[in-house]
């Protein structure tokens, strides 16, 4: 009766899902174990697990669904990672401004102002005569 054998129920002590019940799904190597159940399905160091007395029958490397059935039968809750629904990105079209156009537009009004001023004066003189 090994301590961290496949199917051993234990409690995770460290990390985000500390205090949650999980089951050993696969023994990766003497220090690491694959764990699933109320915690996320992940590789965990056995130092961060507290083994409990109970064990459940589980074949090594069981999928999340198998673990889920067994856990639900035992009345334990299971962690289901919600698929990330990123909202559809609004495709804002880049306002393509021709840099060149901008420059010329700026330059023109300056010149016009000067001409019209001169022309007006000339006209004024003619009308007076």
């Amino acid at each position, binding site marked *: 009766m090994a301590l961290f054998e496949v199917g051993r129920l234990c409690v995770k*002590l460290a990390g985000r899902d500390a205090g949650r019940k999980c089951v050993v799904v696969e023994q990766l190597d003497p220090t690491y174990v694959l764990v699933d159940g109320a915690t996320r399905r992940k590789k965990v160091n056995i130092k961060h697990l*507290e083994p409990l007395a109970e064990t459940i029958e589980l074949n090594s490397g069981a999928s999340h669904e198998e673990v889920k059935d067994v856990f639900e039968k035992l009345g334990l809750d299971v962690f289901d990672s919600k698929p990330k629904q990123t909202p559809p990105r609004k495709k804002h079209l880049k306002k393509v401004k021709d840099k060149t156009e901008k420059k010329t537009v700026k330059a023109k009004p300056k010149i016009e102002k000067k001409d019209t001023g001169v022309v007006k004066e000339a006209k004024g003189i003619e009308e007076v005569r």
Partner: protein
Amino acid sequence: MPRGMYRSRTFRRIFVKVPGNTVKLHYRRRKPSKAKCANCKKLLIGVPHELPLKMKNMPKTAKRPERPYGGMLCSACTRQLLKQKARGG
């Protein structure tokens, strides 16, 4: 003499090099004390101590670790507590 308000020790004195190539004395409020573990009174990791205004604008995850009892107990005390619960319960 500095203004009345700055004559009390609630303000820290800080020497600052200013563009005029001189060293000026600035006053700043003191920060609240560091967070400590409720059990073993050690300093908590991952819990900043900033002035209330700055803390308010911080996201929640920046203010404490995302672990049960995060920000209350240090990691060792949390592990010990959970172990007792698992064994006792």
